[in-house]
């Protein structure tokens, strides 16, 4: 059994020597991930820009803008009146906030004042959300003013210095903001059924399958180099050789999956610690099934190019019919066809765990089929494998 380990270890060592291979299998998952993030990352959170014309440029308008900027997901961009006109005209922007001249002055002298929204039509969805956020900030400011005023009014003539009142009220307001009487907390129930959940499994499975099927090439190459034959004149048995290659291939596929899933966990927070571990179990079993397929390819291919082509054709067909990038409705003909792709079982299993919040117990049949493919693949590849082509 030790020899199995050495075969796998040697394989990993060779693989670390080949910079191209290493880059392909480790960097590509990261690049793939960056692409998913670029495509779908922004949509996981609301982000908007509030366009503001600040005609006042006084103490209170800057406090107001500071508070607006502090709201999560809102960016403040200051523009001039003429820029605002052009942008609104071209519909580049659907909503602009005007802080009128004299805004701070009015507030200081205790008068009423107004903020002005200039908008096209109903200002669009984003505009409406931004407008509401601005109203919220204005409301807060309003209440703070009233508290200030009422406290100063009722304490007037009692010999308490004005600035002392100011400080105490401000402390009270700050405390209230940190620990509001009516607070709002968020409670997340499983991952959100968004793009990442939908595409990540497909990308992971496609990736593992592709890379592992390519690993078939390594065995064919070893046959050509003569080291395969040489190995089998030592005490190493064909079975041990196969297991060694199998484990090397599984760990290769698994490491790639680990990178993709780990990054997704860190960036998109689509996992809980448990669902992450469960996904890794699925990845491991899937890597096993795919590796066994890789061994079959290695056993039938006559040349490295042959192995590559079989692997590419197999992978493409498998992830095309496996529903990698689109959902296949149950009961359709396409669904029946998809059952012939090992990807579909891995995709389903990942979906249950990641998007539907299920557990490993819910994906028993899928995992069983993948494990079955692995065992059958190992046996079949061993049966058709020939050390010397043409030999019996």
């Amino acid at each position, binding site marked *: 059994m*030790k*020899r199995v380990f*050495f075969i796998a270890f*040697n394989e990993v*060592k*060779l693989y670390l*020597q*080949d910079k191209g291979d290493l880059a392909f299998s480790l960097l590509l998952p990261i690049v793939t991930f960056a692409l998913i993030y670029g495509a779908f990352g922004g949509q996981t959170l609301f982000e908007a820009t509030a366009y503001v014309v600040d005609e006042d440029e006084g103490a209170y308008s800057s406090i107001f803008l500071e508070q607006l900027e502090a709201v999560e997901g809102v960016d403040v961009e200051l523009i001039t009146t003429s820029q605002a006109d052009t942008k609104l005209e071209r519909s580049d922007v659907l909503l602009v906030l005007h802080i009128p001249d004299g805004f701070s002055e009015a507030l200081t002298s205790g008068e009423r004042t107004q903020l002005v929204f200039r908008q096209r039509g109903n200002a669009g969805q984003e505009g409406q959300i931004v407008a509401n956020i601005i109203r919220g900030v204005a409301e807060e400011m309003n209440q703070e003013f009233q508290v200030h005023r009422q406290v100063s009014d009722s304490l007037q003539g009692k010999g308490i210095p004005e600035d002392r009142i100011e400080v105490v009220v401000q402390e009270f307001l700050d405390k209230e903001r940190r620990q509001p009487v009516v607070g709002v907390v968020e409670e997340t129930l499983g991952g959100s059924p968004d793009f990442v959940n939908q595409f990540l499994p497909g990308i992971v499975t496609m990736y593992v399958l592709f890379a592992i099927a390519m690993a078939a090439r390594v065995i064919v190459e070893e046959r050509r*180099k*003569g*080291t395969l*034959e*040489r*190995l*089998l*004149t*030592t*005490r*190493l*048995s064909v079975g041990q050789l196969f297991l060694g290659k199998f484990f090397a291939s599984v760990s290769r596929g698994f490491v790639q999956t680990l990178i993709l899933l780990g990054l997704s966990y860190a960036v998109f927070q689509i996992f809980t610690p448990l669902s992450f571990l469960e996904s890794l179990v699925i990845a491991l079993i899937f890597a096993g099934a795919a590796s066994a397929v890789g061994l079959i390819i290695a056993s039938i291919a006559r040349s490295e190019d042959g192995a590559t082509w079989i692997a590419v054709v197999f992978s493409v067909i498998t992830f095309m019919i496996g529903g990698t990038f689109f959902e296949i409705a149950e009961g359709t003909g396409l669904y029946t066809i998809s059952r012939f792709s090992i990807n579909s079982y891995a995709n389903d299993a990942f979906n249950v765990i990641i998007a539907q919040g299920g557990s490993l117990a819910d994906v028993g049949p899928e995992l069983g089929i993948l494990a079955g493919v692995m065992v059958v693949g190992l046996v079949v590849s061993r049966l058709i494998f020939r*050390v*010397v082509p*043409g*030999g*019996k």
Partner: protein
Amino acid sequence: MAEEFLVVKDLHKSFNEFKAVNGVSFSIGKGEIFGLLGPNGAGKTTTIRMLATVLKADSGEITIGGHSVRRDAESVRNIIGVCPQDLALYEDLSALDNMVFFGRMAGMNGKEAKEQAMTNLKMMGLVDRAKGKVAKFSGGMKRRINLAIALMGNPRLLFLDEPTVGIDPQSRNNIYETIEDLRDKGMSVLYTTHYMEEADRLCKRVAIMDGGQIIALDTPYKLKGEIGSPEQVTLEDVFLKLTGRSLRD
């Protein structure tokens, strides 16, 4: 004759309809270097593959060190070393890593494998290149590593399939001396080659093979004596006389 270490009886192997090995019988004594000579395509490599357990014979009996290849391949693998015709090395690894890896495959532990690797590298004059990547080696150095690997695990029977093809006289001489040294320590050797002077120098007996069959088998001296005065004719003359002058590929 000395105690027989390898016995081959009536070996046959066909690829599809083509008879690559067609009724080969011979034996090799303990501590004997036995030459298997023949033009390209004669069936030498196919014979070695069957002896080395990687190719199943269609029929015939092979016994090595008392173990039947058919029934007990595992025991046979424990006592043989194979130096294949084509280099069989991991070019991306160092010489030492190659040797240690194959040493472990031959059943040695890490320490033993490392020690023997260094001993063999010394014997092959490659100690100072132990850590060098094989890909950077010259043809002669690769050949010597190829042989050094075959010696890992101290085999008692060594198969050398054209071990000196395309290398410089120094490397070649180093290989001859190594083989003679090992023979003196009791190792049996099956040696195939195209170079007749080589066979004349090293081999106690030679078999000349053509078309899958052995067409002559004796000491080089006696074979030469059959076509003239052994002092005047060469083994090459014998070879050409027996196998004809037509070109092979």
